[in-house]
Protein backbone atom coordinates (compact mmCIF):
# COMPACT_ATOMS: atom_id res chain seq x y z
CA UNK A 1 0.00 0.00 0.00
CA UNK A 2 2.67 2.48 0.99
CA UNK A 3 4.91 1.54 -1.91
CA UNK A 4 2.16 1.92 -4.50
CA UNK A 5 1.17 5.26 -3.02
CA UNK A 6 4.73 6.51 -3.31
CA UNK A 7 4.93 5.34 -6.90
CA UNK A 8 1.75 7.19 -7.81
CA UNK A 9 2.88 10.31 -6.00
CA UNK A 10 6.25 10.19 -7.72
CA UNK A 11 4.70 9.86 -11.18
CA UNK A 12 2.24 12.66 -10.48
CA UNK A 13 4.97 14.94 -9.19
CA UNK A 14 7.03 14.30 -12.30
CA UNK A 15 4.08 15.13 -14.54
CA UNK A 16 3.15 18.20 -12.52
CA UNK A 17 6.64 19.61 -12.78
CA UNK A 18 6.48 19.42 -16.55
CA UNK A 19 2.98 20.67 -17.24
CA UNK A 20 1.94 23.02 -14.46
CA UNK A 21 4.47 25.85 -15.06
CA UNK A 22 2.97 26.36 -18.50
CA UNK A 23 -0.50 26.71 -17.06
CA UNK A 24 0.86 29.11 -14.47
CA UNK A 25 2.40 31.17 -17.22
CA UNK A 26 -0.97 31.36 -18.94
CA UNK A 27 -2.76 32.57 -15.83
CA UNK A 28 0.01 34.99 -14.86
CA UNK A 29 0.58 36.80 -18.14
CA UNK A 30 -2.84 36.39 -19.66
CA UNK A 31 -1.35 35.80 -23.10
CA UNK A 32 -2.28 32.60 -24.91
CA UNK A 33 0.78 31.18 -26.61
CA UNK A 34 0.29 27.77 -28.20
CA UNK A 35 3.39 25.74 -28.99
CA UNK A 36 3.84 22.82 -31.36
CA UNK A 37 5.52 19.81 -29.85
CA UNK A 38 7.95 18.19 -32.25
CA UNK A 39 8.16 15.11 -30.05
CA UNK A 40 5.06 12.97 -29.72
CA UNK A 41 5.10 12.63 -25.94
CA UNK A 42 2.89 9.94 -24.49
CA UNK A 43 0.99 11.61 -21.67
CA UNK A 44 -1.28 9.62 -19.41
CA UNK A 45 -2.31 9.65 -15.77
CA UNK A 46 -1.72 6.35 -13.95
CA UNK A 47 -4.75 4.81 -12.24
CA UNK A 48 -5.06 4.78 -8.47
CA UNK A 49 -4.43 1.08 -7.88
CA UNK A 50 -2.16 0.34 -10.83
CA UNK A 51 1.59 0.64 -11.15
CA UNK A 52 3.48 3.16 -13.24
CA UNK A 53 3.32 0.93 -16.32
CA UNK A 54 -0.44 0.34 -16.26
CA UNK A 55 -2.59 1.22 -19.26
CA UNK A 56 -4.76 4.28 -18.67
CA UNK A 57 -8.31 4.29 -20.08
CA UNK A 58 -8.88 7.01 -22.72
CA UNK A 59 -11.87 8.58 -20.93
CA UNK A 60 -12.69 9.16 -17.29
CA UNK A 61 -15.09 6.55 -15.89
CA UNK A 62 -18.00 8.22 -14.14
CA UNK A 63 -19.94 5.54 -12.21
CA UNK A 64 -22.48 8.09 -11.01
CA UNK A 65 -25.33 8.25 -13.57
CA UNK A 66 -25.75 11.96 -12.87
CA UNK A 67 -22.26 12.69 -14.20
CA UNK A 68 -22.80 10.29 -17.07
CA UNK A 69 -25.88 12.22 -18.16
CA UNK A 70 -24.04 15.52 -18.01
CA UNK A 71 -21.02 14.38 -20.01
CA UNK A 72 -22.98 12.07 -22.32
CA UNK A 73 -23.18 14.55 -25.27
CA UNK A 74 -19.40 14.35 -25.61
CA UNK A 75 -19.70 10.74 -26.77
CA UNK A 76 -23.06 10.86 -28.56
CA UNK A 77 -23.86 12.49 -31.87
CA UNK A 78 -25.72 15.76 -32.27
CA UNK A 79 -29.14 15.62 -30.65
CA UNK A 80 -32.05 15.96 -33.09
CA UNK A 81 -34.30 18.89 -32.15
CA UNK A 82 -37.47 16.79 -32.30
CA UNK A 83 -37.21 14.91 -28.94
CA UNK A 84 -36.91 18.17 -27.01
CA UNK A 85 -40.09 19.53 -28.53
CA UNK A 86 -42.40 17.03 -26.84
CA UNK A 87 -40.57 16.12 -23.66
CA UNK A 88 -40.79 19.49 -21.83
CA UNK A 89 -44.57 19.44 -22.17
CA UNK A 90 -44.79 16.05 -20.49
CA UNK A 91 -42.30 16.92 -17.78
CA UNK A 92 -43.89 20.27 -17.07
CA UNK A 93 -47.01 18.35 -16.06
CA UNK A 94 -44.90 16.13 -13.83
CA UNK A 95 -43.35 19.13 -12.09
CA UNK A 96 -46.74 20.07 -10.68
CA UNK A 97 -47.18 16.61 -9.16
CA UNK A 98 -43.67 15.62 -8.12
CA UNK A 99 -41.25 18.07 -6.53
CA UNK A 100 -38.48 15.60 -5.71
CA UNK A 101 -37.04 15.44 -9.21
CA UNK A 102 -37.80 15.62 -12.89
CA UNK A 103 -36.80 12.72 -15.17
CA UNK A 104 -34.22 13.91 -17.67
CA UNK A 105 -34.28 12.42 -21.17
CA UNK A 106 -31.04 10.62 -21.99
CA UNK A 107 -30.03 8.79 -25.14
CA UNK A 108 -27.14 6.81 -23.71
CA UNK A 109 -28.34 5.93 -20.20
CA UNK A 110 -31.12 3.38 -19.87
CA UNK A 111 -32.50 4.53 -16.52
CA UNK A 112 -34.01 8.01 -16.24
CA UNK A 113 -31.96 10.50 -14.24
CA UNK A 114 -33.89 12.77 -11.88
CA UNK A 115 -32.63 16.35 -11.55
CA UNK A 116 -33.66 19.51 -9.75
CA UNK A 117 -36.71 20.98 -11.44
CA UNK A 118 -35.13 24.44 -11.41
CA UNK A 119 -32.11 23.18 -13.33
CA UNK A 120 -34.04 21.17 -15.92
CA UNK A 121 -34.14 23.79 -18.68
CA UNK A 122 -30.60 24.91 -17.95
CA UNK A 123 -29.29 21.37 -18.35
CA UNK A 124 -31.10 20.95 -21.66
CA UNK A 125 -29.74 24.28 -22.88
CA UNK A 126 -26.19 23.36 -21.90
CA UNK A 127 -26.55 20.00 -23.63
CA UNK A 128 -27.46 21.72 -26.87
CA UNK A 129 -24.55 24.14 -26.50
CA UNK A 130 -22.10 21.30 -25.93
CA UNK A 131 -23.54 19.29 -28.82
CA UNK A 132 -23.25 22.34 -31.07
CA UNK A 133 -19.65 22.92 -30.04
CA UNK A 134 -18.90 19.24 -30.56
CA UNK A 135 -20.47 19.21 -34.03
CA UNK A 136 -18.47 22.25 -35.08
CA UNK A 137 -15.38 20.55 -33.62
CA UNK A 138 -14.49 23.75 -31.83
CA UNK A 139 -13.60 22.01 -28.56
CA UNK A 140 -10.24 20.29 -28.65
CA UNK A 141 -10.62 17.19 -26.50
CA UNK A 142 -7.05 16.01 -26.41
CA UNK A 143 -4.93 17.54 -23.67
CA UNK A 144 -1.46 18.69 -24.61
CA UNK A 145 1.26 17.79 -22.10
CA UNK A 146 2.75 21.29 -22.31
CA UNK A 147 2.02 24.66 -23.87
CA UNK A 148 5.48 25.97 -24.72
CA UNK A 149 8.24 24.04 -26.42
CA UNK A 150 11.09 26.07 -24.93
CA UNK A 151 9.89 25.57 -21.37
CA UNK A 152 9.47 21.87 -21.99
CA UNK A 153 13.03 21.60 -23.30
CA UNK A 154 14.30 23.55 -20.30
CA UNK A 155 12.56 21.15 -17.92
CA UNK A 156 14.10 18.21 -19.76
CA UNK A 157 17.59 19.65 -19.37
CA UNK A 158 17.30 20.27 -15.63
CA UNK A 159 19.23 17.97 -13.33
CA UNK A 160 17.16 15.33 -11.57
CA UNK A 161 17.87 13.38 -8.40
CA UNK A 162 16.65 10.04 -7.11
CA UNK A 163 13.03 9.40 -8.03
CA UNK A 164 13.02 11.97 -10.81
CA UNK A 165 12.64 15.11 -8.71
CA UNK A 166 14.45 18.25 -9.79
CA UNK A 167 17.68 18.92 -7.94
CA UNK A 168 17.60 22.07 -5.81
CA UNK A 169 20.60 23.05 -3.72
CA UNK A 170 18.54 25.17 -1.33
CA UNK A 171 16.04 22.39 -0.75
CA UNK A 172 18.78 19.81 -0.15
CA UNK A 173 20.45 22.00 2.46
CA UNK A 174 17.29 23.02 4.32
CA UNK A 175 15.05 20.00 4.19
CA UNK A 176 13.75 20.76 7.68
CA UNK A 177 12.45 24.17 6.54
CA UNK A 178 11.10 22.79 3.28
CA UNK A 179 7.51 23.82 3.95
CA UNK A 180 8.21 27.41 4.96
CA UNK A 181 11.13 28.21 2.68
CA UNK A 182 10.74 30.10 -0.58
CA UNK A 183 13.32 29.71 -3.30
CA UNK A 184 13.98 33.34 -4.17
CA UNK A 185 16.98 32.54 -6.33
CA UNK A 186 14.68 30.90 -8.86
CA UNK A 187 14.24 33.41 -11.66
CA UNK A 188 11.15 31.75 -13.11
CA UNK A 189 8.05 32.71 -11.13
CA UNK A 190 6.04 29.80 -12.48
CA UNK A 191 8.62 27.22 -11.49
CA UNK A 192 8.79 28.84 -8.07
CA UNK A 193 5.03 28.52 -7.67
CA UNK A 194 5.30 24.93 -8.77
CA UNK A 195 7.91 24.21 -6.10
CA UNK A 196 5.85 25.94 -3.44
CA UNK A 197 2.95 23.69 -4.27
CA UNK A 198 5.13 20.59 -4.14
CA UNK A 199 6.81 21.56 -0.86
CA UNK A 200 4.24 20.02 1.56
CA UNK A 201 4.50 16.61 -0.11
CA UNK A 202 6.99 14.10 1.27
CA UNK A 203 10.04 13.14 -0.73
CA UNK A 204 9.96 9.59 -1.98
CA UNK A 205 13.72 9.06 -1.89
Amino acid at each position, binding site marked *: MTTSTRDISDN*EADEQQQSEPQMQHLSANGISHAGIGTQNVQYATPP*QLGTGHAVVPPTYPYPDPYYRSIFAPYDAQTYPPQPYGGNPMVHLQLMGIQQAGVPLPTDTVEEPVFVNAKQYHGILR*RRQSRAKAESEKKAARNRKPYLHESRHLHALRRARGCGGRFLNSKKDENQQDEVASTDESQSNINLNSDKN*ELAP*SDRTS
Partner: protein
Amino acid sequence: MMDNVGGSSSNIAENSGIIREQDRLLPIANVGKIMKQILPPNAKISKESKETMQECVSEFISFVTSEASEKCRKERRKTVNGDDICWALGSLGFDDYAEPLRRYLQRYREQELDRANNPPKRG
Protein backbone atom coordinates in the same frame (compact mmCIF):
# COMPACT_ATOMS: atom_id res chain seq x y z
CA MET B 1 13.00 31.57 -34.00
CA MET B 2 10.95 29.52 -31.57
CA ASP B 3 8.81 32.52 -30.64
CA ASN B 4 7.93 33.13 -34.28
CA VAL B 5 6.92 29.51 -34.70
CA GLY B 6 4.73 29.75 -31.62
CA GLY B 7 3.16 32.97 -32.83
CA SER B 8 2.30 31.55 -36.23
CA SER B 9 0.89 28.45 -34.56
CA SER B 10 -1.30 30.64 -32.36
CA ASN B 11 -2.57 32.51 -35.41
CA ILE B 12 -3.36 29.26 -37.20
CA ALA B 13 -5.23 27.97 -34.16
CA GLU B 14 -7.27 31.15 -33.86
CA ASN B 15 -8.11 31.22 -37.56
CA SER B 16 -9.43 27.67 -37.56
CA GLY B 17 -11.76 28.54 -34.68
CA ILE B 18 -10.69 25.67 -32.43
CA ILE B 19 -11.29 26.31 -28.75
CA ARG B 20 -8.07 25.25 -27.10
CA GLU B 21 -7.78 23.52 -23.77
CA GLN B 22 -6.30 26.58 -22.05
CA ASP B 23 -9.21 28.71 -23.27
CA ARG B 24 -11.93 26.24 -22.34
CA LEU B 25 -10.74 25.23 -18.87
CA LEU B 26 -9.44 27.00 -15.80
CA PRO B 27 -5.70 26.64 -15.18
CA ILE B 28 -5.03 23.31 -13.52
CA ALA B 29 -2.55 24.76 -11.02
CA ASN B 30 -5.09 27.25 -9.69
CA VAL B 31 -7.71 24.51 -9.42
CA GLY B 32 -5.24 22.38 -7.48
CA LYS B 33 -4.50 25.22 -5.07
CA ILE B 34 -8.18 25.82 -4.36
CA MET B 35 -8.71 22.10 -3.76
CA LYS B 36 -5.71 22.03 -1.44
CA GLN B 37 -7.07 24.84 0.74
CA ILE B 38 -9.80 22.63 2.18
CA LEU B 39 -7.55 19.59 2.76
CA PRO B 40 -4.98 18.85 5.48
CA PRO B 41 -1.45 20.08 4.74
CA ASN B 42 -0.10 16.59 4.06
CA ALA B 43 -2.89 15.57 1.68
CA LYS B 44 -2.10 14.70 -1.92
CA ILE B 45 -4.31 15.34 -4.94
CA SER B 46 -3.95 13.19 -8.04
CA LYS B 47 -3.61 14.67 -11.49
CA GLU B 48 -6.81 12.90 -12.50
CA SER B 49 -8.69 14.60 -9.68
CA LYS B 50 -7.55 18.04 -10.78
CA GLU B 51 -8.47 17.36 -14.40
CA THR B 52 -11.89 16.08 -13.39
CA MET B 53 -12.43 19.14 -11.23
CA GLN B 54 -11.31 21.35 -14.12
CA GLU B 55 -14.12 19.91 -16.23
CA CYS B 56 -16.67 20.21 -13.43
CA VAL B 57 -15.96 23.81 -12.46
CA SER B 58 -15.75 24.98 -16.07
CA GLU B 59 -19.10 23.34 -16.82
CA PHE B 60 -20.61 24.90 -13.69
CA ILE B 61 -19.44 28.36 -14.79
CA SER B 62 -20.99 27.84 -18.23
CA PHE B 63 -24.17 26.50 -16.61
CA VAL B 64 -24.69 29.54 -14.38
CA THR B 65 -23.60 32.01 -17.05
CA SER B 66 -26.01 30.47 -19.55
CA GLU B 67 -28.89 30.99 -17.11
CA ALA B 68 -27.87 34.61 -16.53
CA SER B 69 -27.40 35.22 -20.24
CA GLU B 70 -30.88 33.89 -20.96
CA LYS B 71 -32.32 36.41 -18.49
CA CYS B 72 -30.40 39.24 -20.17
CA ARG B 73 -31.60 38.11 -23.57
CA LYS B 74 -35.23 38.24 -22.47
CA GLU B 75 -34.76 41.72 -21.00
CA ARG B 76 -32.88 42.86 -24.13
CA ARG B 77 -29.72 43.71 -22.22
CA LYS B 78 -26.26 43.00 -23.58
CA THR B 79 -24.14 43.06 -20.43
CA VAL B 80 -24.27 40.28 -17.84
CA ASN B 81 -23.51 41.86 -14.47
CA GLY B 82 -23.03 40.54 -10.96
CA ASP B 83 -26.70 40.81 -10.03
CA ASP B 84 -27.59 38.56 -12.95
CA ILE B 85 -25.16 35.93 -11.69
CA CYS B 86 -26.66 36.08 -8.19
CA TRP B 87 -30.15 35.80 -9.65
CA ALA B 88 -29.08 32.85 -11.81
CA LEU B 89 -27.71 30.98 -8.79
CA GLY B 90 -31.02 31.45 -6.99
CA SER B 91 -32.98 30.49 -10.08
CA LEU B 92 -31.04 27.23 -10.39
CA GLY B 93 -31.56 26.28 -6.76
CA PHE B 94 -28.15 27.30 -5.40
CA ASP B 95 -29.64 29.60 -2.78
CA ASP B 96 -26.91 28.78 -0.27
CA TYR B 97 -24.37 30.26 -2.67
CA ALA B 98 -26.45 33.19 -3.91
CA GLU B 99 -26.66 34.91 -0.52
CA PRO B 100 -22.90 34.92 0.28
CA LEU B 101 -22.22 36.04 -3.28
CA ARG B 102 -24.59 39.00 -2.90
CA ARG B 103 -22.74 40.10 0.23
CA TYR B 104 -19.43 39.66 -1.57
CA LEU B 105 -20.73 41.74 -4.49
CA GLN B 106 -21.85 44.48 -2.10
CA ARG B 107 -18.43 44.63 -0.42
CA TYR B 108 -16.73 44.57 -3.83
CA ARG B 109 -18.75 47.58 -4.98
CA GLU B 110 -17.96 49.44 -1.76
CA GLN B 111 -14.26 48.85 -2.34
CA GLU B 112 -14.62 50.12 -5.90
CA LEU B 113 -16.23 53.31 -4.59
CA ASP B 114 -13.43 53.81 -2.06
CA ARG B 115 -10.86 53.31 -4.78
CA ALA B 116 -12.60 55.85 -7.02
CA ASN B 117 -12.90 58.45 -4.26
CA ASN B 118 -9.32 57.96 -3.05
CA PRO B 119 -7.09 57.55 -6.10
CA PRO B 120 -3.54 56.38 -5.38
CA LYS B 121 -0.91 59.11 -5.03
CA ARG B 122 1.15 57.65 -7.82
CA GLY B 123 -1.60 58.31 -10.37
